[in-house]
């Protein structure tokens, strides 16, 4: 494994943490629940799907990169993106997600030292 791969993986995971924190802040769920390996309840699962969707859309990460950053399967992320995209037909929800998307987009690119 080369350095670039590790660097990319680290920044992806940092982006996932950030997205999770934002979603937890907005939708009032615990960060531990969102990062858990199990599903937890419906509210948490939905918030997790939103987080994965946002990571895919706002940071333009591929589905498999989102999957490894969130410690989930690629098809789980794909399902989440399908589901959230369908839910965005609801204008209120669409507006809310648009705001979250914008927040994540306006953040500066990470400027980390390459891991040695």
């Amino acid at each position, binding site marked *: 494994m080369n350095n670039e791969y590790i660097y990319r993986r680290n920044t992806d995971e940092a982006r996932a943490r950030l997205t999770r924190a934002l979603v937890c802040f907005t939708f009032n769920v615990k960060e531990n629940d969102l990062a858990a390996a199990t599903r937890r309840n419906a509210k948490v699962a939905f918030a997790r799907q939103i987080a994965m969707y946002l990571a895919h*859309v706002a940071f*333009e990460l591929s589905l498999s990169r989102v999957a490894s950053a969130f410690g989930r399967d690629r098809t789980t992320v*794909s399902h989440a*993106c*399908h589901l959230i*995209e*369908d839910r*965005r037909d609801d204008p209120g929800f*669409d507006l809310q997600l648009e705001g979250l998307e914008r927040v994540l*987009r306006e953040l500066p690119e990470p400027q980390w030292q390459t891991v040695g």
Partner: protein
Amino acid sequence: MRPDEKRLHRLLLKLVDHPQVLLPDGRDGYIGQIDGQPAIRLPAKLAGLALTRGLLLSDQKGSLVASDALPHWLRRMDGARGSAVEAQTPFAAQHWVLEEREIFDVDGDLIVVQANVAESPLLWLYRQRDAAGDRFLSGAEFAAGEKFRRDYAASAMGRMAASNWSAVRQGGSARRSASADGGMLSGSLDARRRVMQALAALGPVLDRVVFSMLVREQGISALERGHHWPKRSGKVVLKIALTHLVHHYGL
């Protein structure tokens, strides 16, 4: 439908309401502004998808503009979310203008169906132009035919024997629905009177022509066969009938 396509659909819908160009944002994506604010961000992946589908075109300066194909694609995407028939045949459905109509099914029950207004014989004939680019029917003739069709639909003569039980089923709002039906009844009686007067003004042969073309929506050739008229004479007869209607309605 793929999520990428859905996302693209959502973003491009905003573009239709605010026609404009999308400018490159320096990160392979594109930005569209609404009221001076950056409102649409099209990521590189979606921009590529839109370009390969021919929905957007890039101009010399490297920005993107909507193509002629975009409105049709948006209509198809809307259709895909619409009724099952529209979803099955999106390319045909993008040309439909759907309207609800009450008809009798084979068992004699009154059912509500979706009709494609865009393929009514009258509209089809109105759309035809000769070699010089002139329409066969004038606007007034088309309007007279449409007025007759609307009157007939409003008169509810197509379901003369049927009682309207829909108000009974609604329960709770009995008083309101009763008054609404009373209003509809007098309206339909007026419409019925107008239809009968128009048919009387047309006379014994032309009334049948108008009826079969506008109400039954039979094709012209079926009409010609039914009356043993020479081929391609039917539309001339229809034009004469419609001219009578124009005079009758005073259009």
